[in-house]
């Protein structure tokens, strides 16, 4: 599904990501962890095309996407959530989903109509996505008025609305209490049931260890370990990276 091959990114003299390679298979949930500043978010941004890779290759379904701009990567099936929640806060909940649904071009009506005509309301589809995300009763509310946990869910719902094959979650559990984390865990498993592939960047180990199939550990932009949650917990290098010393 997602193949990352020897990618690297330098910011000035800092090697934020250095010769990183890993794969994510179809239908798998992979966790990407590492101490602060280890290059996790940079990796997500490289996959989404927020900035280009300095070297290396990123491909999705055998299609090389390393040089595509962000919006074309979305079209090839990648969508994401953000570390700091980013919603259109002055739009209502359903409008936030609608804007994502609309980007899927509708061949049946012709381009004149699609771009210049009144955009059509896909109410059933919006409702379905919101119910799936546990926001069914918040349809008409303003996105900015939702609680923190709900805003996270809305972001996830918007990511689903772009009909992705691969979802990148950038620290979705940041700032959540343990009930909310448990809810989030269930939602990530639901994504898997839909057949989606998930790459999860996360600090909250309570979530990572209980949801992922496989973990990739980064430190100083390099991969230091890869394996099942149990293997990673017992890995000496990982313990050293997190706790320091011997």
């Amino acid at each position, binding site marked *: 599904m997602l193949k990352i091959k020897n990618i690297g990114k330098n910011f000035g003299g800092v090697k934020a990501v250095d010769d990183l390679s890993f794969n994510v298979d179809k239908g798998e949930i992979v966790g990407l962890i590492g101490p602060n500043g280890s290059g996790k978010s940079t990796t997500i941004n490289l996959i*989404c095309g*927020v900035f280009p890779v300095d070297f290396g290759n990123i491909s999705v379904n055998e299609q090389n996407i390393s040089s595509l*701009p*962000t*919006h074309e990567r*979305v*079209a090839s099936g990648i*969508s*994401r959530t*953000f570390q700091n929640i*980013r*919603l*259109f806060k*002055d*739009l*209502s909940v359903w*409008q936030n989903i609608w*804007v*994502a649904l*609309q*980007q*899927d071009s509708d061949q049946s009506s012709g381009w004149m109509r*699609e*771009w*210049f*005509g*009144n*955009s059509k309301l896909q109410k059933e589809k919006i409702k379905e996505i919101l119910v799936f995300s546990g926001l069914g009763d918040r349809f*008409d509310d*303003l996105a900015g008025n939702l609680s923190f946990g709900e805003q996270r869910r809305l972001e996830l719902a*918007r990511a689903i*609305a*772009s009909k992705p094959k691969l979802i990148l979650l950038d620290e979705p559990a940041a700032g959540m209490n343990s009930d909310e984390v448990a809810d989030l865990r269930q939602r990530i498993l639901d994504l898997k049931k839909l057949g989606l592939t998930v790459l999860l960047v996360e600090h909250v180990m309570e979530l990572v260890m209980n949801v992922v199939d496989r973990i990739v550990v980064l430190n100083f932009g390099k991969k230091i370990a890869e394996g099942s949650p149990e293997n990673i917990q017992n890995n000496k290098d990982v313990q050293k990276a997190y706790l320091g010393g011997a």
Partner: protein
Amino acid sequence: MSLYFVTILTNMTLISFIAISAYLILIVGEVSFGQQAFFGIGAYITATLTTLLGLDIVIALFFSFMVSASFALVLSVLTIRLSGFYFAVASLSFAELFRLSLYKIEYTVETNSGTVGPNGPEGFQNIRWIFENNVSPDNFLVIAVSSLLALIILLIFMENSKLFKNARLVGKDQIVAQSIGIRPFFYRVGFITLAGGVAGFGGGLFALFNTYIEPSMFGIMLGVHGLAYSIIGGLGYPLGPLIGVFIDIGLLESVRFLSEYRMILFGGLVAAILIIFPEGIISPRLISRIKRKLVKKTNA
């Protein structure tokens, strides 16, 4: 209507084109201090085409639109990586570059209605289209107002289109817009180009109405006023810039009896409006609140 009143209304209509062009750029999230240049380009193009080539006003205004839009297209492509302050400064530099070059462009022809053609600091004189065609000030006002109305109606219809919706999303948060599959640069370039064309069209009308144009008319204060009108009026709906123009010029003229004190009063008024309505009078928030009410009503 008295001539005084007609002249005020015509001026308000013409400056509305600049306000709308500033508005179009503001909705994609940029600020331009250079719309006066496109107004100027349009003015010089229409002046040249109607006097030197004797073309019809419709063709002249069409070319004003197209040429100004092309300049705006070039500017937007050159500044594709600039945003915020940097774009604002780039647009201002472009406008000043244009204005200062006008002082150097001299090409005059003697005709039986006098010397015509751009003549450096002397300006472009004897744009006699309205006299030659016996267009009275009232009739010219009708032409100007109907063009403006056509533009506004078009914009209101487009407000619900995917094109305009996406443009607003790009203006709100470019990163999110990209991440749901919107191509931000397309909207930026498209709207800056369209804004240039709209300003150029208004400039063309201005040249015909004023019968005389000179480089100093297209200084930064013209662009700043256009920008201020769309900010006072709000970015929620195409009528916003018109309300801004109306408040500024309308009120300014109505308190003329206060003579020199009226500018002081006016400054305070603008400040007060922006304190009470920080996002302008017709703010996007107000529009989305109204829309939600309407949707709820149709659902109920």
